[in-house]
């Protein structure tokens, strides 16, 4: 049932997931040391979702999510140094230190944020898809949201317009079981999020979001559908976050056993490592090489985030308005 991939692609996928895992672990440490402050929402446990999706995207495709966005950025190929330095609020950060964890963007890598208001990214992503269709560039917009956001009215306004106008958008509902401290059972009457597009005939499917190859396969189906002009597609990813909602959340709403259970039986990295060793016959030393490389990349990012200077005080008043007017 699961499609197979080449050893090269497997090592890349593993490396991409591992980069996110190690990066987020270091970010948590830096937060504890006071170098990162305010909001910091970690993606640990959910790595397979973004890595699986990214593997099927084309160069013109666009990506948008809410505030649990470090993983999306790294999977899109943004520089870990620029991401970590934004977390520490330095001028070398992607937003020159003025945005923070939830507000990073890269036009070069087609990553459109990084948004702090739950659900707001969904109409915006639908608009990015509108632009793809208007410009006839064959692009698709991957719009990520959580189980908490999936109850927002603007999500359903977006579904309606996407279906009405057959916009090339794939809605990826990253269902990690909790919207902050509220479980899906307590927030959602009828929590089959993938089926909530039925009212508009939007196809949807639920995917094991802890298995990167299953994510890839489903993402390929969804993106092909959207790209062909048939309109939107909904993917519900069954995933899990190992840490709390944010760095301020002690996560008392779930048991330690539940968390440990997922780590032991469903970890995306452990599972994929087994697959690489047993099925693809990749050697331990090849995997170790990746692990060593990632260690260096993350260390470099952390170093940069500490040495990059804070923004110049004059930056308080820059980037409020853009100069100029369209010259044709």
């Amino acid at each position, binding site marked *: 049932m699961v499609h197979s991939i080449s050893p090269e692609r497997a090592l890349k996928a593993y490396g991409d997931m591992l980069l996110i895992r190690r990066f987020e672990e270091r970010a948590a440490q830096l937060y504890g040391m006071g170098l990162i402050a305010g909001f910091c929402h970690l993606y640990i446990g959910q790595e397979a979702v973004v890595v699986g999706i990214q593997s099927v995207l084309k160069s013109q495709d*666009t990506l*948008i999510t809410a505030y649990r966005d470090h993983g999306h950025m790294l999977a899109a190929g943004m520089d870990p140094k620029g991401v970590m330095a934004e977390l520490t609020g330095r001028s070398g*950060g*992607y*937003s*020159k*230190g*003025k*945005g923070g964890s939830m*507000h*990073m*963007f*890269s*036009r070069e890598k087609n990553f*459109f*944020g*990084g*948004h*702090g*208001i739950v659900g*707001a990214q*969904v*109409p*915006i*992503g*639908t*608009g*990015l*898809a*509108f*632009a*793809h269709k*208007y*410009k006839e560039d064959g692009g698709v*917009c991957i719009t990520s949201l959580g189980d908490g956001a999936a109850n927002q*009215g*603007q999500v359903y*306004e*977006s579904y*309606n*317009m996407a279906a*009405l106008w057959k916009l090339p958008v794939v809605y990826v509902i990253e269902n990690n079981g909790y919207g902050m401290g509220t479980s899906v059972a307590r927030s959602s009457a009828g929590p089959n999020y993938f089926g909530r597009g039925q009212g508009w005939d939007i196809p949807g499917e639920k995917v094991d979001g802890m298995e990167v190859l299953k994510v890839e396969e489903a993402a390929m189906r969804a993106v092909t559908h959207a790209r062909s002009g048939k309109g939107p597609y909904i993917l519900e990813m069954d995933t899990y976050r190992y840490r709390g909602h944010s760095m301020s959340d002690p996560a008392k709403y779930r048991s330690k056993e539940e968390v440990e259970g997922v780590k032991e039986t469903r970890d995306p990295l452990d599972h994929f490592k087994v697959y690489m060793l047993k099925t693809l016959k990749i050697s331990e030393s090849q995997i170790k090489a990746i692990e060593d490389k990632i260690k260096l990349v993350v260390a470099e990012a952390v170093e940069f985030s500490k040495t990059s200077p804070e923004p110049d005080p004059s930056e308080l008043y*820059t*980037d*409020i*308005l*853009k*100069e*100029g*007017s*369209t010259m*044709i």
Partner: protein
Amino acid sequence: MSADPKNHSLLSMTVREALRDGMAEEMHRDTSVFLMGEEVAEYNGAYKVSQGLLDTFGSKRVVDTPITEHGFAGLGVGAAFGGLRPIVEFMTFNFSMQAIDQIINSAAKTLYMSGGQMGCPIVFRGPNGAASRVGAQHSHCYASWYAHCPGLKVISPYSAGDAKALLKAAIRDPNPVIFLENELLYGHTFDDVSSDPEHVLPIGKALIRREGKDVTLIAFSIMVGKALEAAERLSEQGIDAEVIDLRTLRPLDIDTVIQSVKKTNRVVSIEESWPFAGIGSEIAAIMMEHAFDYLDAPVMRVTGADVPMPYAANLEHLALPQVEAIVDAAKAVCYRS
């Protein structure tokens, strides 16, 4: 009618026609410009501002939306991030409150939050403030709400010529622009509309519509008309009023106001909306900060009554600033009764 230097003429037309022409010219000029909103296409616009645009440009570029302001405002923001130049029409700005998170948090703030990467070239336009007898939920003026926020430009024109030239400027501007029109002005005819498709007014420059030396009357949108009427009545009583049409609320043309006050030494600010934290409050603060030594009297504000807009005709009349109130305020700052 007269000719302007570029061999184009000044035309006489209504505000709604001028706005339509402004949009049409910009849509001809730049294929990334498109219009979306409720009833803008097949209905030709709830107030007929987009009359004929669907026939000219087709349904890809003139898009009827469902009644989902929150969703379509956000969609417009995404389209702008994605390289298009949307004009999003709110049937009235009262409905923009449903979308205000997208306007402020997604459109206005993102250039800053992204360190300059994510500009949002979008225009949100539609009628603002009171119409006639439409009651409290449909008569709200958002001038001071939007003018409050860095990251936006806020324009509120009076004449047809200004409406066209400023809407063109707004569409060409790379920032999110709030363009506040007025339903009652749509049908007014002015003869100041340029036929030159390259005639664009600078955003942030006020206009002195009537020169005077005794008192400065500051207004925007429909209140400019009332201020001009008041100036006529005042001149019969020997008071020579200068009328400033702000045109843009953010950025506010403080220099033009200060230069005027240096001459007249007396200021009356006029707006149709509520007094608390209104545009007049800002003008009064600016006068304190920049022109205190030139004032011979405290700044006076003429505003709408601090009430939700009533339906009854007599109460609505009382709730909005009338010409007499402006005349009385001008006389008060001149210490004449």
